[in-house]
């Protein structure tokens, strides 16, 4: 009998299977698919700053758009793409971890530890019969090791880098970033680049929310 839905036939119809026939985690793949339908979101890092931008979908004129750029701690910010409820939970997990570090060590947490923590938090959702979080997150911050930019995916994978794009048509946006990235950009130029990338990805002039942390200021701030 052909299998339907996400349940193995020999499991009494109770547990969803984890691995598909190709050896992929189907639930995680579905979460990634959900992320790829989220609003296009970009992270850019140069030696001088790390920038986060996220496309704001104008829904209805009477409805205020949801906040998409989040302060995690004074020196760290994050944004995400995917289901907004899932993003918010991951953002809160990051905020909690940042404050725990301040309690335990009386010092600001480094961005790598935050990315690692979020990675292992998300990994937990891939080993049990639960719904993996449908959200990718980009974290930017300034710590003891300098400016940092990370992307964390629903699989628990985290990557360090200088340019990330997630959400709808992320591959197109990432292509634009790769082609037009330069290390000596100003913040304004980087915002313009991310606008171009999102515009190229969606085919429309985007409304974006942005946040930046500079090597000089060392504090994460939302851009007006």
């Amino acid at each position, binding site marked *: 009998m052909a299998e339907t839905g996400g349940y193995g036939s020999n499991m009494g119809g109770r547990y969803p299977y984890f691995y598909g026939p190709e050896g992929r985690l189907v639930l995680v793949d579905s979460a990634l698919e959900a992320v790829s339908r989220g609003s296009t979101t970009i992270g850019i890092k140069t030696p001088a700053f790390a920038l986060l931008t996220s496309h704001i979908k104008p829904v209805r004129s009477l409805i205020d758009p949801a906040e998409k750029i989040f302060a995690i701690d004074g020196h760290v910010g994050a944004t995400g793409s995917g289901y907004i409820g899932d993003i918010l939970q991951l953002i809160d997990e990051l905020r909690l971890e940042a404050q725990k570090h301040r*309690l*335990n*060590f*009386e*010092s600001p947490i*480094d961005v790598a*530890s935050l990315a*690692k923590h979020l990675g292992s938090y998300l990994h937990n959702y891939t080993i049990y019969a639960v719904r993996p979080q449908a959200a990718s997150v980009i974290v930017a911050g300034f710590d*003891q*090791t300098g400016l940092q930019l990370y992307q964390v995916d629903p699989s628990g994978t985290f990557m360090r880098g200088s340019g990330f794009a997630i959400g709808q048509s992320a591959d197109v946006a990432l292509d634009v970033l790769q082609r037009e990235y330069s290390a000596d950009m100003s913040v304004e130029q980087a915002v313009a680049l991310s606008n171009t990338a999102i515009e190229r990805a969606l085919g429309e002039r985007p409304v974006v929310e942005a946040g930046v942390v500079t090597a000089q200021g060392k504090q994460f701030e939302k851009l007006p």
Partner: protein
Amino acid sequence: MTTIVGIKTKEGVVLGSDKRASKGFFIGSKITQKIAKLDDTLAVAIAGQLSDAEYLIKVAKAERKLAELRRGFPLTVKESSRLIANLAYSGLKNYQPYFVELLVAGVDQDGGHILTADMSGAITSEDFASSGSGSPIAYGVLESAYRKDITNEEAKQLATKAVAVAMERDPGSGNGIDVLAIPNLVMEVAK
């Protein structure tokens, strides 16, 4: 009982201690090691219950190593002190306090640091500090001779003198002196 001293210098930090472990009015040991190195950049001088102090140091050593492996660079002296103080504080609040007063001494990217951590979980940052029954006497020596631009070699002599003077009049301290100097990290030339 005990006399321990810690001195911040322009070249790093110096710790000094006596070697007596008291069992009431009896000298339990004459060769006690009261200065414990956690690694090459951090050491702790112990006053109080030796067993409690050794346990705290063991846990702090493990946590410090673990944190360094996880995040890729070591804990600062202040971070390590907060770690130890949190352990002490949770002990206090669970009605099973660690009967210790520790001098945490170490070097990091910001230079040398001397901090005191006691059983209440309080930490204070100092230029120099002393603890144990001989500390009022040791403080007399430290207060009269400490300078901010003291070198490690001078601080070793000052620590030795402070502990020696305390041993002269404090019956809880005696049987020789240990001194440990930790030099500042050699800063890499900025790329």
